[in-house]
Structures are given as structure tokens and as C-alpha cells.
């Protein structure tokens, strides 16, 4: 125990030597990025300072009238519904594509390898484009509707989930699987009775984390005109009703933290 400690401390000393160069590079990157800021034009715009003060004092207290709370609850529900529908669709698409991309279905062969690579490429494109950009595209094509939002969340999230699933399915150790193979199980059976059960805890844990992210994604769909927490925040901001903004922010934070707590408990109980 103490020996691993000592060797790690030695590695640490080596780290300290190369640290200087790394620090220099990172600090350089930060300074370089500061050149992008337009320093001449005034950082804070006229009245910005006062608005900021007003915004901060509006937290004490936030808007708590029953009518507004009702509106906040309805908006939270709307956001939750979009997030849940989006993530369930993402789970279905992600699992299907993830299994194909993992290449664990069927025996190794050139054509199957090509399909796996194609699936991986498809997943990469799906997740490269941000959910809100997808939303803009869908709303432009299909018009304002709940399904446009659900698809806009489901596609990039399926891209992320599919990649993670395929990695988890591939990382299953061969030992237990060989047992199944030697008893004559087909690759499909190895997948269903071996790979998936063994990777399941990690898959569920990660999916719950993504569910939390989906709540945030659903909240910002206001930008394409979909109702929900983000939409109400925007309306209240436009009317300069900062105490209402705070109430809505607190609802959003509460919703996200609730799901965060849920996902932490699930992951803990799965032991991952």
C-alpha cells in the first residue's frame, strides 16, 4: 500500500517537471482567447450595471404568488414531458444503433464490419449537431410541434447513447461470454444473455445521467418557440420581471437536481 504510494509520488515529481511547459501552453491559450474580446466597445452596456443590481435584488424574494407558481409548475411539467419523451426515443434508437455499431451481432466478416463502421459514422453525425440546431431544422421543416422537440432531443442523444452503449457492450470481458459460446449459443444469444446483462448496470447509470441533461435540453427549446421553462424565462426577462425569472430558475434547478439525485441513487444502488 505504502509502496504504491511512493511510486505514485515519484510519478508526481515527474509531473511537476513537465508541468511548467504545460502551464505555459494553457496560459498562452487563455491569453490568446482574450484577444477575441472586443475590449474597446465597452464590456458592460449602458444601464447594464443597474440592471445587474436589480436582477440580484429581485431574488429577495422571488415571485411566489399562487397564480405564478401554477404557471411555473405547468411549465416544468411541459419541460419534463418533452425530456422524458425525447430520452425514451433516444434510448430505443441508441440501443438499436449501439448494438449494430458494437459489431457484436453475428460473426466477424467484412460486410458486417462495414455495417458497424457505417453505424458508428451515423452516430457521430447525429451527436455532432447540437440539439437546438436540430430543433431549428425540424421546426423549419415540420412547424412548431411537440414532436419536433422530441425528435430534436432524441437524435443527438441517441448518437451519444449509441456510442456509449457500443463501447460498454464491447468492453464486456470475454471470460463469461466464452462459457455461453462453448455451450453453443449464437452471437445473438450471447448478446441477449451475456453482453447486455453484464453491461446493463453501466448502461442504466449513464442513461440516467443523460436524462438529467435532457431536462436542460428540453428547457432551452424555447428558442424555437416551444413552451416550457425556458420560454417563460424569456418572456419574464423581456418584461424585466426579474423576480419571476428567479422563480423559474429555481424551478429549473430544482427539477434538474431532483433528476440528478435520482440518477445518483440509481448508480449507487447499482454499485457502479
Amino acid at each position: 500500500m505504502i509502496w504504491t504510494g511512493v511510486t505514485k509520488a515519484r510519478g508526481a515529481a515527474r509531473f511537476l517537471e513537465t508541468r511548467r511547459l504545460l502551464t505555459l501552453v494553457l496560459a498562452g491559450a487563455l491569453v490568446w482567447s482574450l484577444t477575441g474580446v472586443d475590449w474597446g466597445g465597452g464590456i458592460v452596456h449602458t444601464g447594464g450595471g443597474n440592471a445587474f443590481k436589480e436582477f440580484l435584488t429581485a431574488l429577495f424574494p422571488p415571485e411566489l404568488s399562487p397564480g405564478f407558481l401554477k404557471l411555473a409548475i405547468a411549465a416544468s411539467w411541459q419541460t419534463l414531458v418533452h425530456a422524458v419523451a425525447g430520452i425514451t426515443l433516444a434510448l430505443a434508437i441508441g440501443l438499436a444503433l449501439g448494438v449494430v455499431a458494437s459489431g457484436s451481432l453475428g460473426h466477424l466478416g467484412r460486410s458486417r464490419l462495414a455495417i458497424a463502421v457505417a453505424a458508428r459514422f451515423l452516430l457521430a453525425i447525429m451527436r455532432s449537431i447540437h440539439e437546438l440546431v436540430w430543433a431549428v431544422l425540424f421546426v423549419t421543416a415540420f412547424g412548431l410541434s411537440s414532436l419536433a422537440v422530441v425528435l430534436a432531443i432524441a437524435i443527438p442523444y441517441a448518437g451519444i447513447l449509441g456510442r456509449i452503449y457500443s463501447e460498454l457492450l464491447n468492453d464486456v470481458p470475454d471470460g463469461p461470454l466464452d462459457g455461453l459460446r462453448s455451450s453453443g449459443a449464437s452471437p445473438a444469444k450471447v448478446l441477449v444473455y451475456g453482453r447486455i446483462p453484464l453491461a446493463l448496470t453501466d448502461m442504466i447509470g449513464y442513461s440516467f445521467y443523460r436524462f438529467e441533461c435532457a431536462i436542460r435540453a428540453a428547457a432551452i427549446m424555447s428558442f424555437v418557440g416551444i413552451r416550457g421553462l425556458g420560454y417563460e424565462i424569456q418572456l419574464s426577462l423581456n418584461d424585466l420581471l426579474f423576480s419571476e425569472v428567479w422563480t423559474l430558475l429555481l424551478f429549473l434547478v430544482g427539477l434538474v437536481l431532483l433528476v440528478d439525485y435520482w440518477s445518483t441513487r440509481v448508480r449507487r444502488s447499482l454499485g457502479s
Partner: protein
Amino acid sequence: MTGPKSTLPEVAREVVAGRGRITFARASNYGFVALSVVAWVYILTGGDSGLGDLFSGRAWSNAADFVRQLLGIDEPGRPAYLELSRWAETGKLAYKTLLMSVLAIGLAGVGVLITFLPAARNVSNGELGGRPSAGLGVLYHVLRLVFAFTRAVPELVWAMVIVFFLSPGVLPGAIALGLHNYGIVGKLSAEVVENMDPGPARALRSSGAGNLQMLAYGIIPQAIPQFLTYLLYRWEVVIRTTVVVGFVSAGGLGREFRLSLSFFHYTDVALIIIWYLILVLAVDLLSAGLRPIIRAG
């Protein structure tokens, strides 16, 4: 209990039977299924579900028209993505967008670097050296609350609020992205310190190291590589989000995206999406190249 020697059928049976430590997970799975059924019923029975559109020919021909417009088919003049001058103009914006993402990660990184140690439980209660005090205990809870709040609010909502105070440009976008990522990386980095192998710290302590030496040789070298890896991973996410933050006049490609869309300059939109994909790919490659250097460092 699943021992290290357990065979596959046992594990499978345990998962299927839902015994022991997986009961909560099982219950929550049922809860999630119920929730998703309610959500789908709510969406599909709502008036504006758009399900009908999905099967109507009109919506699909709209979508096809939109793709044709993006590609600039049957439009007069050359599409923007074939004009070198348009590439140069949007290239400048792409450069600004890249700067914005680096600045955002830089701001988040500096913020985390200052605050992650007192936000780790084993530092605030004195397990890793130092003296526990009521002030440190309070600071721990305050920082954890700040992490949770900044993390829970999406970048775009931060940006919406911030453009009320700051002039539009790269800075408000970077601050909005920085705030959200500060919460994420802060929490993860504090957890790295909490889950740290206490070996090196103990070895140092037993050879008579003081608190500062413990920090410099025992804690920082273990935590920093992990912290930098998180920053790199978040940078990959941030570059995808810069476009979105640009929607609220935070500058860069996102702003141009929105303007082009509202002026119906669809081939410009296509060009911006191409630039966006280039940026995403470049950052992914750069980050993948930097990661081993940090690990080795």
C-alpha cells in the same frame, strides 16, 4: 452477493430477479417506464403533437424543400458554400467561435482551480492535512451549492440573462458557457480529490511534509491531470454549444446562423453548418491528441 468468482448465469439471474442491492434501481426503472408512458400519452393526445404531420406528405415535402434550399438547388446564383469569399467571411466567425470556446473553458478552469480544494470534503474536514474549522465547513457547503446551481442552469439560459448586462460579443457567450461548465468541472474535480488514493499523501506525511508540501506534492499532482482531462472533455462539448449561445447575440457563428435563417439565406446556413462540423471535428481531434500528453505529464 456477487463474488468475483460468480458465473454468468448467477449474475443474469440476479439482474432478472432484482435481488439485493438492485432493488432501488428496479423500482426506479418501473417509475421511469410509468413516467415515459404518461409523457408519451400527454404528447400524443395534445392538440399540437405534430404526429399527424409526420405521416402527411406535405410535411415531408416541406422537409425536402428545406433540404433543397439548404443545398441551393433551383436558386439563382451560386450557393454560398461554393463562394470562396463567403468561406473567408464565415471563417473569421469560426475563428471567433473557437476563441469563445477556449475563453469559456479558460474562465471555468481558473474558477475551478481557485475553488475546488475547499469544495472537497476531505480537505474541508482536515483529513488531508490542515486544521478543520467552522468557516471551512460553511465554505464547503456554499461552494457545493454554487456548483449545483451553475451546473443546473443551461448555458443558453445563462446567456439570455447575461446579455441583459453585457454588450453582445464573444465575452457574454464565453461567460455563459464558462458558468455552466464551472459547475460541472468543479463538482467533478472536487470528487477527484475526495476519491483520491491517500497513499502518496500518507507517504509524504510520514516523511515529515508540511501542509503546503502535501498540497504541492500529494494532492495537486494527482488531481490536476484528471482536472485537465475533464476540461478537455468539456471543451469538446462547449464547441458544440458555442453556436447555440450565439443565437442570443453572443457573436460568432451562432449569430450569423440565426441571421441567415431569418433572412432566408439558406445556403449560408448550410455553409455555417459545414464550418460548425469542421470546428467540432478539429476540437475532437485536438483534444484526443492532447489527452495522452496530459496523462503522461
